[in-house]
């Protein structure tokens, strides 16, 4: 995986990108746990937890300060119903869904100035709290390797190891 990242996350002229290739290589979907690292080569589908674990490792190999970030999203009923059915039909427990809320994992990248970027390999994008639409994030919890007193994600103060609730209108009605 590290070799693939070294090859596929570098442009022709050497610019390094987020590990976009992961989402090309793996589908997002239900995944039985426990899962071992040696299961990765033959896997077709990863869930957000697996995407986050692999992505975090790849960023660390690149020399970045990274860790898994926990998120809570709120989605409309029809969306969570669809995911519930998808996980159930695959024989997986949809325990990450509770009502309109879902639990999600991505990768937090800690910058020297205390700011945090969040890369979500499940959807191949940087997460932002400022999108006006399509952004149902309601809470976030990060775990920095080197505890810092003042962390900030997208202008939101974040306390290491604690759930931080974002003051946002809910998306599901």
């Amino acid at each position, binding site marked *: 995986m*590290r*070799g*693939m990242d*070294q*090859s*596929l996350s*570098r*442009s*022709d*002229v*050497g*610019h390094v*990108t987020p590990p976009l290739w992961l989402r090309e290589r793996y589908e997002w979907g239900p995944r039985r746990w426990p899962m071992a690292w040696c299961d990765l*080569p*033959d896997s077709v589908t990863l869930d957000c937890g697996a995407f986050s674990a692999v992505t975090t490792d790849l960023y660390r190999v690149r020399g970045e300060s990274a860790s898994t970030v926990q998120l809570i999203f709120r989605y409309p009923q029809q969306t969570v119903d669809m995911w519930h059915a998808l996980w159930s039909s695959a024989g997986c427990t949809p325990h990450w869904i509770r009502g309109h809320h879902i639990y999600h994992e991505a990768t937090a990248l800690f910058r020297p100035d205390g700011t945090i970027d969040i890369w979500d390999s499940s959807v191949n994008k940087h997460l932002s709290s400022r*999108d*006006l*639409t*399509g952004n149902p994030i309601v809470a976030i919890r990060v775990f920095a390797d080197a505890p810092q007193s003042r962390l900030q994600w997208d202008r939101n103060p974040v306390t290491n190891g604690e759930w931080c609730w974002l003051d946002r209108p809910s998306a599901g009605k």
Partner: protein
Amino acid sequence: MWLSGLDVELAWLRGALPYEEGLLFPSSKALSHVRKPDIEGAIPLGMQLPPSLPGNADDWELYRFARRAGWRVWVKGTFHDAVRVSGFAALRATLRDMTSIWGAEHVFVQREVEGDEESYAFAAWRGELLGAVRVEKRMVTTRGKTWAASVGPLSDEATAKVRLFVERTCWTGGGEVEFIYAPDGSKFLIDLNPRFPAYIFGAALCGFNLPARLIAEATGLPYADPAAQSEQFVRVVVELPTRASHHVPAIPKGAAMLAVGKHPSQQPKLRAKLTERGALPLRGASRTPMPLPLGWSAAAAEALRTARTPARIRLGEVHESAVAEVTAATARFEEPFFTPALSVKTNPDPELGAIALRRGWWAEVISSAEAAWASRAGFARDSIVFNGPRSSTDDTSAAGIVFADSVDALATLRDRCNGAQLLGVRLRPPRVVSRFGIPLAEHAAVRDLVAELEQHSRWAVHFHVASDVVGPDAWWTLLMDVLQWARRIADLVGRPPAVLDVGGGWHSDDFNDLFLPRLDVLNGAVRAQLPSVTRVLLEPGKAVSERAGATVASILECRRAADGADVVIDASIADLPMALSQPHRILHLPKDGAPQWLGAGTDRVLGSICMESDVLATRLGFKIAPRSGDRLLFFDSGAYDVSMAWPFAGGTVRD
């Protein structure tokens, strides 16, 4: 009120409408600031321009430009059209097609810049910026047109730059700044459209109705931005019923279809009208002189003395010089030692082999026949390297190092060689599309390779990707990538490689200008990643043999074509097979008169066999009228033009 959505149309309207009132598009003077490719508007916008060449530059210059860009280039019209091309044949064909539509002076070739595509769409009235939005492209068509995007407000800094542009040009109307946001933060302007982009309603859906702002300003009508429905939009195709009064005619057939089917907007005809009335300044051809090949005058003299054509002319001194240059560049390194190896397949001329042997080169072969050639030429067994898919089936006993093209081949070689030779593997980096080597992107292949290498007491690694296909920058990145893969594999095997073999389809210009000066970097990278490697084999391949030969042909017939001359010669693509994939420098040797180099133009050189593909050169210009019996001397034909030539139309069957 006049609002145009087509670049040529609004330029034409400027001349056709003799008044200013109600024209909601830029003045002729403002339009001059956005003419591609040297868009003056890039300056107030604080953006760079991607490198470009005019489409009527000569093939040698265009080939060099595109090759060094790794064939990430676009052929564009100054008004409309953009086609990405990925090889010389496609470049030549696209230039021909677009030139026929837009005119040679209104076509250019632009290097693709790596990064994210963005746009600023804006509206302005008499030099005052009325509004602007930032558009991040999310989906683009094959021609680069925006199909889905995110829309948001412009930053204060970007707004200030667009305002400065609008003020300086006294802009009226819509506009779109299309640029690439490069990973290093710089911005490259790729287009500055003097009109609203076709997707502008998508911006309105996101709360920014720029056309409404423009019309409100021009008319004094009240206006308020609509509520945003989203931050993104995607375009769709809508089928509409037609009115009986606007009957759509039948599609023309055959050639007529090709002529009109692509541009129902009639923009090419408008462009022609503009050119006729002198409203469009024409771009001149590139002024960069073509570098003359070494030894050309001696070759020209020999070409005139040659009794029969077509014929090959060996440029032994040029080869000697090229071999000496590589030898000198590599000799200054201590461990790992750099050893050049002659690729026999590029030109199995014994005299060229003797030159390399005298300089201490090794020989690289891909068949038992070539291995026998190398032995006869005097290369010792330890200095013969066997590569290619035949290494596991051919007799390789004449070679000291043998590389396998697959794990199965490596296992076969292990059984057969029994430790008598150093065995190695060719690795295929994950991003490379190739039929050769062990695919590192496939986990099972890597796992099998590691298991196989555990059976070997020593091993070697081979990297080979064509530089003139992927581009010198990408080639270098891939080489560094392979070094790291080799290190990872060595860690798993528990035994590092002893030899690294590096090859790769270098054009001689690139090899001398870009590769040899970076040997220090390669030396350092090998020491860092693979300190066990004691020898690095370098295969310059055609980079040394290409210039060592020329081909002389006689003109059989000169025909006047629609826009130039068609010159038929007695050679063909059977004699110059590389003519389809790369240009040659061509010297015209008149029967009476001084030699003339062929430059850019509209003439063609056609071969002598009855195949449509037998076109040896296009888009070139004779400086003096060619006549039957004159000779043409094709330089840069000393490598695969020799070894891949085939007998054709000679009344013989290949045995």
